[in-house]
Each structure stands twice: as structure tokens, then as C-alpha cells.
């Protein structure tokens, strides 16, 4: 019974919408664009957010990165020019981390030296990274060929090196790199392995191909990384570095380690461990010559930022839906006054107020649902084009489809109700006389 009534009413609605095809289409356009923009904007926002997450996740969400930074001059320079500076993380720090902090799985002390690498007559600037065999556990880079460092290399300070793919491409244009010798400074190192290039944090995977040139410029100083045993690095390069500075002639700096990466076993341990590290470091480093980076924290910060971003985009789109809804209400009011006489006839023939409400509301709902479905269709194609031509990642989530469809339904009810009420509350005698 109810079903039959609904069916008849919907049939009638479709009929009268079909009678005014152009008007119905134009009216639905507001909803179509509204829904499409909600979906598209949420998809773009979600895509950007996942992209950012992925970049941060590459740093390792279980890692805590402690970096050496040069303490600012005014902190300790008391008038006299210092020509010798000692700062930064030390081997002792690494040892302390290992001994004092529970839940720590891996500690990777890293020594970085900018240098030049030679192969035959080719020379490129590189960053020489003195590290330990378990470096790969904390890094997104992976072994492509050969092997990484071993305990033996560490213990016996072997003159070997692992190069990344960028170095390989620059130095070994024609030769197979393994077992060849690279000259760094005055020493020769045998190449035993190739690793993938460390991804640059700002570029996404899709952009990487396009951005190679920009990346090269960015990297500028060094064309790639060369990994050698930490012990070898300590021996060969020492801890001193001499810099020529314009005002005071020379300056000597002593830095033991540039970086210590601490990896914990579980995501819950990241923040407590960070606090412990902070305390330990504060005790031994009065100069404030270190910097703690927690990718997990960055990740959460990025999530918060992205949420705001999504909310802003979503509300802009929701406003466009609202405008669409107002458009619908406008047209429905016009329709109601145009069909005053029909309303009068129906009332005389036994239609109750709620029958009239139902009739006009169903027309509005038909419009918004049809608009919603078309809007979802367009909303799904827009992100496709954005991804294809704009090189931006987009993700359409099921919840955004449901959300926009739900909103369009709600808009239909909200903005259909008033015209329907007006129709129902017209005086039947007046409406029958209406021309």
C-alpha cells in the first residue's frame, strides 16, 4: 500500500520533471557541481595527505634522528675569536644511548664527510658516510647489488665502500662498478656493493622522474653517497676539519659524529625514548649542539595539518552544495506557484496536506539524488584528470562518496521542505480560482 503510493508519487514526480527537462537539468546542475567538488576536493586533499605521510614514513616512523648542529656563535663567543671549536655528538653518546635506554633496537652512529671521489679521470663531489653494518635497518635505501658493510670490515677497518646508484651512474659510465677502486682523498676503496639512492624528502615518487634535474641542482655539492665502515672513516678522516674563514684566517672544528639514528621496537616507545634521549643529551651537551627529529611526530603533525586542509577544502565544497540547494529551493518555489491550480484540484479531490508535501518533496529528492549520482560520476573523473595531467596524487575514499551523497540528500530534504510546505498550506479555494 505504502509502496504503491510511493511508486505512484515518484512516477508522477519523474513525469513532471521530465515535462520540464531543461529546467530540471539546470536545477540539478547546482547539486551535480556541489557533489563533484566535494568528492574532488576531498580526493585531492586525501592524495596530498597520503603523499606527505609516505614521505615522512620513509624516514622511518620508529626512528629517532639525533643530528649534530653547529652551535650558534653568540652562545659562547665571548668577545675573543675562537679558532678551535669542538661540538656535536660523540662516540660516547652512542655508547650511552646503547647502555641507558631500554627498548632501543638499533643505534646507528653516522659520520658524514663531504669529499671528492675519483675513478680514472672522472671526479665528482660526494658525501662519504661512515656507518655501521646495520645502517640499512633504519634507512629506506636497499641493497641493489653486491653486499653492505660487515662486522669484519668494521673490525679490520677495511678500505671498501658501497656506492649509491647516482654515484654509480656518474662514475661508472662504461665499467661494471663492483671490484673497481675509487679514490677518495689519497686512498683507494674497493667497491663491494650498490645501494638505491636515498629518496629526497620533498619529491614524491611520481615526480621523481620529472625532477631529476632539479634534484641534481639541489644536491649541488654532492652527486651521491658513498658508504664506508665507520672505523675506516675515523681512521682516514679523523675528527678535525679545517675551514678557511675570511675574517679569522683558519678555523678548526672537531666533530665526532654527525648523526645518530635510534630505532625503537614499537611505535609506542618512540616518544618516551625521545624524552630519555633529550635528558641524556642535555646532561652532556651544554652547548645545545644537537637536534632531535622524530619522524613519527612529524607524521602526526602532518596529519593534523592535512585534517585542517581537508576541512577547509570540504567546507568550500559544502558551500557550493549549499548554493546548489538554494537554487533548487528557488526553482521549486517557482514550480509550486506555477502549479497552484493543480494543487487546488488535488486538494478538492481528497489530497491531504501531507500528500501534497510528499509530492513536491519527492520531486526535489529525485532532483537531488539524480544530481548526487551524476555528481559522484563527475567527482570521480575530476581526480583522475588531476592525477593524469596535474601530476598530483588523488585518493577517492568511500567515505567521501557517502558523505557527499548524504549531504545532497540532506540538502534535498532541507530545501525541498519549505516549498512543499508552502504548496500544502495554500488555501484550496484560492488555488482553485488561481489562473
Amino acid at each position, binding site marked *: *500500500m505504502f509502496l*504503491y*503510493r510511493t511508486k*505512484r508519487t515518484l512516477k*508522477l514526480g519523474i*513525469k*513532471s520533471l521530465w*515535462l520540464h527537462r531543461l529546467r530540471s537539468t539546470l536545477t540539478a546542475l547546482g547539486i551535480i557541481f556541489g557533489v563533484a567538488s566535494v568528492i574532488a576536493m576531498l580526493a585531492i586533499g586525501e592524495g596530498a595527505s597520503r603523499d606527505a605521510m609516505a614521505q615522512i614514513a620513509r624516514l622511518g616512523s620508529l626512528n629517532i634522528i639525533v643530528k649534530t648542529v653547529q652551535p650558534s656563535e653568540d652562545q659562547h663567543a665571548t668577545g675573543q675569536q675562537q679558532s678551535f671549536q669542538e661540538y656535536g655528538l660523540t662516540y660516547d653518546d652512542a655508547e650511552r644511548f646503547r647502555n641507558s635506554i631500554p627498548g632501543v633496537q638499533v643505534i646507528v652512529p653516522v659520520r658524514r664527510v663531504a669529499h671528492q671521489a675519483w675513478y680514472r679521470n672522472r671526479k665528482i663531489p660526494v658525501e662519504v658516510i661512515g656507518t655501521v653494518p646495520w645502517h640499512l635497518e633504519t634507512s629506506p635505501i636497499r641493497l641493489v647489488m653486491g653486499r653492505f658493510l660487515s662486522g669484519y670490515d668494521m673490525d679490520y677497518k677495511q678500505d671498501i665502500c658501497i656506492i649509491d646508484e647516482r654515484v654509480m651512474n656518474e662514475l661508472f659510465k662504461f665499467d661494471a662498478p663492483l671490484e673497481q677502486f675509487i679514490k677518495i682523498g689519497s686512498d683507494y676503496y674497493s667497491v663491494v656493493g650498490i645501494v638505491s639512492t636515498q629518496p629526497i624528502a620533498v619529491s614524491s615518487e611520481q615526480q621523481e622522474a620529472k625532477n631529476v634535474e632539479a634534484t641534481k641542482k639541489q644536491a649541488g655539492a654532492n652527486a651521491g653517497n658513498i658508504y664506508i665502515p665507520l672505523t675506516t672513516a675515523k681512521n682516514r678522516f679523523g675528527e678535525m676539519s679545517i675551514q678557511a674563514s675570511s675574517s679569522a684566517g683558519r678555523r678548526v672544528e672537531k666533530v665526532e659524529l654527525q648523526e645518530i639514528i635510534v630505532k625503537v621496537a614499537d611505535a609506542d616507545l618512540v616518544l618516551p625514548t625521545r624524552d630519555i634521549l633529550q635528558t641524556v643529551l642535555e646532561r652532556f651537551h651544554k652547548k645545545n649542539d644537537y637536534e632531535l627529529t622524530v619522524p613519527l611526530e612529524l607524521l602526526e603533525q602532518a596529519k593534523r595539518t592535512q585534517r585542517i586542509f581537508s576541512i577547509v577544502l570540504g567546507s568550500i565544497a559544502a558551500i557550493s552544495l549549499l548554493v546548489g540547494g538554494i537554487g533548487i529551493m528557488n526553482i521549486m518555489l517557482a514550480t509550486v506557484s506555477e502549479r497552484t*491550480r*493543480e494543487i*487546488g*484540484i*488535488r*486538494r*478538492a*479531490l*481528497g*489530497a*491531504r*496536506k*501531507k*500528500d501534497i508535501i510528499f509530492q513536491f518533496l519527492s520531486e526535489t529528492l529525485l532532483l537531488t539524488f539524480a544530481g548526487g549520482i551524476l555528481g559522484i560520476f563527475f567527482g570521480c573523473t575530476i581526480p583522475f584528470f588531476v592525477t593524469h595531467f596535474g601530476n598530483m596524487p588523488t585518493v577517492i575514499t568511500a567515505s567521501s562518496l557517502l558523505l557527499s551523497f548524504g549531504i545532497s540528500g540532506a540538502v534535498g530534504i532541507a530545501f525541498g521542505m519549505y516549498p512543499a510546505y508552502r504548496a500544502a498550506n495554500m488555501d*484550496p*479555494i484560492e488555488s*482553485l480560482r488561481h489562473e
Partner: protein
Amino acid sequence: MEQPRDKTLDFTSDGHILVFDKLCKNYQLGSVELKVLREIDLVVKKGDYLAVMGPSGSGKSTLLNLIGCLDRPSSGKYYLGGHDVSTLDDNELSAIRGRHIGFVFQSFNLISQLNVLENIEVPMFYQGMSEHRSKVRAIELAEMVGLGDRVNHRPTELSGGQQQRVAIARSLANDPLIILADEPTGNLDSQSGRDILNILDMLYQQGKTLIIITHDEDIAKHSQREIRLFDGRIDKQWYNR
């Protein structure tokens, strides 16, 4: 539709389909109260064919609205089929209209988006009749008024006389107590007008109760009983046959 039956009033016996008991209708025009109908007493029996006459401004339209349950009286009682309908709310009045009153208007008032069959089905739809039954009934009625071959036409494709026949068929859809016709031939040429009057005569002979509102003496002659309204009162009434 079940209506509470008012048992205290014995003059609403079964033969009396419509009873007006001191029915008044006033309109408030600014500060002036306009008395359109003054204490109308009227009884219509089952099978009556009543013509309501009167010059314009005599209260014919107001009477029509009251009989048709489109309006409520200011005072007095209106019993339709034994039920007091003068105090019903909008929903109940709608139901009474759909169930017990069959309207025939001067300007036909068909719904232009619907074809003949669908137009006849409208009152049945609002009474909740099943799809199949209402279709069968609509075809039956269309054949009765001689439009069995045009059931799929739109009102705009029909002549005035044909449209009015559709309207009569529609008014019969729920087998109402009263068929209420307001100047049913007013917009028609004389031949079509005669056809319509013949159909109304036929309905009278079948025992339907008709109330026809007109200012045309010739049409009124068809009726069994005439009422002349003047200045909101029943001026004269007499029987034709």
C-alpha cells in the same frame, strides 16, 4: 473513513444525505464583518437533484465551498451522511472531500500532465485504492461517459465537452454521496452543454444525488428541485417534478 457519529441528532436519518442547521458564513473584511450566508436551513435527501440559483453575490460560491467541505461554517451545523463535518480538521475534511463529494467544475479542472485514465484515477489514488482496481474502475467510468476510446489522451487533446465528461467520470470515481457541479455547462457550447446535462439526468435516474449550482434557468429546469438564494438567504424553493 470512519467518522464519529453524532447520535443526539435524530433528524440526520439515513435518507437525509445533507443537512444544514442554521448555517452561517461570515468574512472579515478589514473591520467590517461581511455576512455571506445567514442561517441557511437545508435538507437534501438521497436521490435528490437540486439546483441552486441566484444572482452573483448571493452566496452561491460560498455555499458550494461549504457543501464541498472546502471551507468551514462560521456557525451552525453541517451534517453530511449523518456525520457532523462542521468542526473537522483539515485532514478529515480532505478525506471527506475525496470520499463523499464529487466535484464538477465550470473550467473542468483536469490535471494537464495526466491522461484521461490517470485523471479519473486521482481521487481513487488518494483514497488508497489498489492500482488494479482503480484502473478497472477508471476504464468503466470512461466508457460510461462515452470516452472509452480516448483513455490515453491528454486533456489538451480533448474538446471542452469531452473534458467535462472526463471530469464527471472523475467525480464518480469513489461513488460519492453528492455530486457537486458548479456551472458545469458554463464554458461549453450549447450542444456539448446538452450532452453534459443528459449525462447528469442519467445519473439522477440512476439514483445519484446531485447538487448543481447555476444561474441558467434552462439548466435549473432539468432539476427536480430548485433553490433561489438571495442576499445570503434561501429566498424561494420549489419542486420541478
